[in-house]
């Protein structure tokens, strides 16, 4: 039996093959690159240009001079730094306790802790603030039942809300370092007679230093750039994120907003850079064949740690749970009878923004997953000289706060100077900004998958006659499927809850869920805001379950194939 081999008729006249594969590889890199230039680099250039465009249309640093001379800016900066610093210390400290509890201590009920830690991730950032107001606000549980009047709006409210908001990130980063610690070094220390406290000081702490540092920078960045909590519970305590909003939306002063945006970029870029360096150091410590540490119960350590862990979890659960609970009662906090009336959203548009957000999120997730996968495929076939700068570019968007990216978009796309104006006010543009806002995380996740991919598999496919297209879909895609699933759901869930990037891009005709919640709260319809938040959390929660299901299904399929 004979099957005709490909290229058997290859005549010597085909001295130079016009190779369709090379063209395809080039397209795979060029198309995502055009996207990055059009939807990331270009808007960022525009925001910079606008920041140096003075009122009379000339270029200069007058705007900066004006901002730097204004008391409001310095107050907001000082507030952002103090609030960010306080939040970071609290969040990383509590996150360290939870991470140690989960990975280094033995007590029952860890699943509950894990669930509590995930909650802030599935909620729009302003939900923590809403919950705090239901508990500690003027019409909160505490003031109602104890008569103590508390001023939750402002510094402390914001610190507590953002601490809860940053906690999951801190726990994840520190946990990632803890699970890399090999049990055998602890066994060796035990045999050498080292006490548990000494082992913590000599072995655990040094190993997680970079993770603590990295977690601090991440929490600091997401805290000073967060808009949702600041808008709901910040009150008169102005921070840089709300300052941009009031310059742009309140005073329609776009250029001043751009200046504040650029100023906000400085600490975030700095912190992003230091964080990346810290992560690099962390990676070099990584070893293969790790024997994971299985803690045995020690009352002196595990009882207090268990109690602390459950207290922190209870704090998160109650702040977010109260929002869900409040959405079902008649009149918070006076009448706790069950009702569904708050789910009848009276604000214009009702639930249409929720459906719209779901469609936008699906769009961002599908197109985004496809785009990072394509880029990763293209990079496999790109000479290192070009690939290196592309990789740096692809990892850059994480350094830009959502507020700044959103501002850059409105300056870029709400200008009739270019055909890009056609995108303004469309759901497509919101999907686009959501993708580029989270481009770095999506890209890095897919790249982890690609790094594990043995290139011989692709070479074997190549030798058998398959081109890049076929190799990508039949060999590489199945291999990196778990990462693609994660990226898809990550982009979907982030798009569902994000507020900072999209707050400038919504119009009266087109709005998204997180913005609707903010409007409901602004309008004093706090219970409806809670109801809408609950609906969003339900959708995102379902998506999270869907992701867990899909990932475990993939794992099951793989383990069946590996015979274990």
């Amino acid at each position, binding site marked *: 039996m004979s*099957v005709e081999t490909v290229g058997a008729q290859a005549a010597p006249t085909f001295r130079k093959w016009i190779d369709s594969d090379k063209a395809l590889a080039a397209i795979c890199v060029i198309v995502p690159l055009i996207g990055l230039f059009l939807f990331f680099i270009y808007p960022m250039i525009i925001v910079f240009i606008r920041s140096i465009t003075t009122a009379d249309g000339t270029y200069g640093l007058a705007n900066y001079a004006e901002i730097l001379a204004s008391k409001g800016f310095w107050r907001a900066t000082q507030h952002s730094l103090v609030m960010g610093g306080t939040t970071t210390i609290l969040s990383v400290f509590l996150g360290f306790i939870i991470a140690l509890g989960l990975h280094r201590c033995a007590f029952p009920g860890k699943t509950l802790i894990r669930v509590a830690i995930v909650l802030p991730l599935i909620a729009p950032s302003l939900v923590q603030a809403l919950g705090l107001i239901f508990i500690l606000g003027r019409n909160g549980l505490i003031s109602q039942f104890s008569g103590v009047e508390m001023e939750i709006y402002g510094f402390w409210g914001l610190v507590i809300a953002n601490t809860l908001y940053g906690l999951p990130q801190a726990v994840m980063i520190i946990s990632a370092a803890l699970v890399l610690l090999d049990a055998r070094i602890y066994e060796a220390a035990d045999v050498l007679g080292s006490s548990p406290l000494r082992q913590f000081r000599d072995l655990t702490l040094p190993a997680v230093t970079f993770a603590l540092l990295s977690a601090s920078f991440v929490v600091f960045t997401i805290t000073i750039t967060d808009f949702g909590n600041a808008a709901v519970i910040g009150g008169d305590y102005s921070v840089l994120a709300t300052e941009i909003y009031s310059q742009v939306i309140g005073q329609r002063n776009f250029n001043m907003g751009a200046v504040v945006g650029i100023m906000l970029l400085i600490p975030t870029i700095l912190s992003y850079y230091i964080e990346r360096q810290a992560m690099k150091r962390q990676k070099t410590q990584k070893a293969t064949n790790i024997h994971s540490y299985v803690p045995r119960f020690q009352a002196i350590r595990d009882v207090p740690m268990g109690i602390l862990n459950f207290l922190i979890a209870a704090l998160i659960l109650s702040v977010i749970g109260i929002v869900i609970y409040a959405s079902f009662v008649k009149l918070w906090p006076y009448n706790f009878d069950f009702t569904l009336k708050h789910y009848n959203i009276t604000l214009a548009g009702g639930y249409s923004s929720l459906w719209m957000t779901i469609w936008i999120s699906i769009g961002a997730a599908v197109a985004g997953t496809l785009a990072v996968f394509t880029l990763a495929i293209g990079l496999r076939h790109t000479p290192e000289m070009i690939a290196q700068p592309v990789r740096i570019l692809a990892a850059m968007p994480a350094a830009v706060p959502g507020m700044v990216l959103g501002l850059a978009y409105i300056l870029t796309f709400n200008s009739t100077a270019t055909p890009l104006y056609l995108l303004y006010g469309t759901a497509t543009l919101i999907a686009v900004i959501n993708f580029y806002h989270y481009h770095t995380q999506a890209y890095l996740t897919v790249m982890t998958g690609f790094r594990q991919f043995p290139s011989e*598999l692709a070479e074997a496919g190549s*030798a058998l006659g398959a081109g890049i297209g076929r190799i990508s879909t*039949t060999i590489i895609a199945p291999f990196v499927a778990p990462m693609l699933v994660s990226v898809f759901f990550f982009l979907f869930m982030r798009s569902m809850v994000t507020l900072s990037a999209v707050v400038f891009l919504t119009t009266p005709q087109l709005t998204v869920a997180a913005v609707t919640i903010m409007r409901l709260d602004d309008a004093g319809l706090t219970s409806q805001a809670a109801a809408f938040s609950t609906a969003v959390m339900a959708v995102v929660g379902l998506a999270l379950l869907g992701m867990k299901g899909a990932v475990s299904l993939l794992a099951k399929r793989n383990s069946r*194939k590996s015979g274990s």
Partner: protein
Amino acid sequence: MYLTVSNATKRYGAFVALDDVSVSLKKGEFVSLLGPSGCGKTTLLRIIAGLTDIDGGDVRIEDVAMSDMPARKRGFGIVFQSYSLFPNMSVAENIAYGLKVRKAPSEQIRARVKELLEIIKLPDIIDKYPGQLSGGQQQRVALARAIAVDPKVLLLDEPLSALDANVRASLRHEIRQLQRELKIPTLMVTHDQEEAMAMSDRIICMNHGVVVQVGTPEELYHKPATRFVADFMGSSNLITTKLIRETLPNLMSTRPEGPDEAFDACIRPEEISLVEDESGVATVTSTSFLGNLNRIDLDGPFGHLLVETHGPCSFKTGQKVSVDVKPEACTWVLNDETEAVT
């Protein structure tokens, strides 16, 4: 010649992986590329496969230039050391992959897969996945996948290195037999001289990016051209001209003309005969029993000598012996090593 590589050159920065290498392969021939790691053998194989670009020279099949043809158009088969089966596909899907790419009718594919599974003597694993197979089974499937498309050339990149010793021995035999039956011109990269000798029609011995010697296994073993080949192909005693002249002058008769440093004597351990002799010049320093042979280490005026004998060993450590080598058992090899010989 069926496959010819002429003047192939490949550089990685300042490192020259291949320096003007020319090799060829006849129809139906099994040739091994043998050499230590880093000698350029794998680079050469990858260039032939089209997986690595060539910097200079060219690759031809029956005078058709291949250098600008991407791997997927060459119609070669390749088997890697790491099996490299597609983990998400069953055995049948793996073997069928190349045929599907070529848009063969599904009836034909099914029949071919069955036939190949018979050939590799694993008819019952058709629906299994690579992860469920042993290393030896995976490598057999990888072989079936490579030959499914009737490749013009079969390229084997250390195909047996990852396997257990007993599996390696049996698969060595099977690959060779299969290759003889199907008459596929085959090029195998290996660093194992025993494997190369057992399987090949010809061996291309490489070092530092150049071809050192090409020949049949017998030629390379009995007539090594250089110290490197003599050393790499089994064990040998390499002795300088000066020492031979002083201690075993009868061997000088076969020596080619040239300065003392140009050639060394290569004497295989099994070519040395020992006689118990109180007045002998050599002393036995150690003996070891290796089952089918004995390994005896000697010290004498010619330096250290390694001797292998069959049958019962009567020599003891510390004993004096006399040494005899027949002139035709000594090969003079080119001294291609820079280090001074002791």
